[in-house]
């Protein structure tokens, strides 16, 4: 099988700081994987490089057998890479429905329509409602996005990403700032969405219950470099990972 995402010898420095140091790995279609590592290990930077928000210094990124290094974020999205952010990136003054609907409209290439009311686009609207249903936000569709609870805003962010029907979805700390209860819920929800939307999913997390609970593959970053890669059991037993990140008592 051909990997959906192939990263080869990727580098990025800010001044003298090597934030991505010769990172290489491949992600298979339909894979559910996690990236872990201490703060400042370069996890979010790596996401930014994949999605074209940051220019890489050297290396190669291939998505669906196509080089995407140096391509604009807009084009990378169009190719099928979706992303939700560490701090929910939503449209605060729009309704929950419209937040997802605008993404559905964009996916369908209907945002260039000038004179038709948004409500008249029934397919995009139905699509948005279905996604909100999957996220469990159906009862809040008419609320303004900024009124939502923190956890729900993060789900809405994921909803916007899903509406673009990505083949690869990147989630940056989906449970950051959530209560233990919300975390449990989010963990199950992400597993459900991964199956339902049939996509490759990579998430950055600090919640080890979630990482070792649902990820098929775990990659550990430390000081910009890939320290270890393997299934949860292998990572859990890895001496280097234990000293660098997990700690002896894990």
């Amino acid at each position: 099988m051909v990997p959906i995402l192939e990263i080869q010898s990727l580098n990025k420095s800010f001044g003298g700081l090597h934030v991505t140091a010769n990172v290489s790995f491949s992600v298979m279609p339909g894979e559910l994987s996690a990236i872990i590592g201490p703060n400042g290990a370069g996890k979010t930077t790596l996401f930014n490089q994949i999605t074209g928000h940051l220019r890489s210094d050297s290396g190669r990124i291939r998505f669906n057998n196509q080089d995407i290094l140096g391509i604009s974020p807009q084009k990378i999205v169009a190719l099928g890479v979706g992303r939700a952010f560490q701090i929910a990136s939503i449209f605060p003054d729009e309704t929950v429905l419209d937040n997802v609907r605008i993404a559905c409209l964009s996916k369908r290439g209907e945002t260039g329509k000038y004179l038709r009311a948004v409500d008249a686009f029934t397919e995009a609207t139905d699509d948005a409602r279905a996604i909100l249903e999957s996220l469990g936000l159906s009862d809040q569709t008419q609320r303004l996005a900024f009124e939502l609870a923190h956890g729900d805003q993060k789900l809405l962010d994921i909803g916007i990403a899903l509406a673009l029907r990505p083949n690869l979805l990147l989630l940056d700390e989906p449970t950051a700032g959530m209560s233990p209860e919300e975390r449990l819920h989010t963990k199950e929800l992400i597993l459900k969405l991964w199956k339902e939307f049939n996509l490759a999913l990579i998430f950055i997390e600090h919640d080890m219950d979630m990482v070792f609970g649902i990820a098929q593959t775990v990659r550990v970053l430390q000081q910009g470099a890939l320290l270890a890669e393997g299934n949860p059991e292998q990572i859990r037993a890895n001496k280097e990972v234990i000293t660098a990140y997990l700690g002896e008592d894990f």
Partner: protein
Amino acid sequence: MTNNAARRINATALWGIVLLIFALVPVFTTSAYKINVASHILVWGLFAVSFNMLWGITGMLSFGQALYYGLGAYSVGLMVEHMGSGWFLPAIALGLVMAIALSFLLGLLVIRVGGVYFTMLTLAFAQLAWQITFKWYDFTGGDDGIQGIIPPGILENRAAYYYFVLVLVFLSIWMLKRMAYSPFGMILRCVQQNPDRVRFLGRRVRRNQLRVYVVSSFFAALAGGLMAGVDSSIHTDMFFWTTSGEAILMSVLGGINQFFGPFIGAAVFILIEDSIGARTEFWPLIIGSIMLIMVILFPKGIVGEVLRLKARFGKNDARR
């Protein structure tokens, strides 16, 4: 769904009532002055609403929409002056075409900078046009402006020209309203709220900013062109920063977050100017005080505050 249908009927009824009120003005008064005031409300209303597509909806505060307003007006004034009144309507069309071309070219430049730099750059270009018009006496009439711009044929009749303005303004505002609630308008609001996320929907922020800049400038030029016939004259002030500034004041007064805010703001502004200006030459002082009170106590503007009250006392959600 029934709620939606009811809202649609309400909206249609409101459009009908407002249209009827404006349509009846020449029936109830033969005073040329009152028809003139009503025309001013319509034309300034269109100018302010088109301006607010930039500011309230997309978050781009242009301080230079007078450039296009003046362009529309001078296109009509100069052609009628130099080529005859038969060129009145083609001149309006020419002004619109020039506004599209100029706003596209300038837009490529000014949208590259954001925030206050965009505001200052738009101001600079409008002031440049004002200077040229002011100094180029032989062609533009300098600060004398041009008088005696009479529309041709049946439009020479005051009431006929008034209805001509009424129809064009209503059609334009109707189109802008459709635009504001279309997917395009939604992208514009998203551009204001979270441009980074818009990029991540696969949409280009600057391209959409350029589009709305051209749209806004087009309707500003239409307002200017119509005004040349309303007052039968043009003057360099139409390019001056105060003209851009008045559109901003009207929008703030009515409420920039509601589509019709700027139109209501324009109406109130002009009625105050008209009623107080008749008694004292210090009417700008009154407008200034009202603006101060509005900004400090009622930042949502007239329409915004009314909707807030309606939402508080009515059970219906008055968000949109």
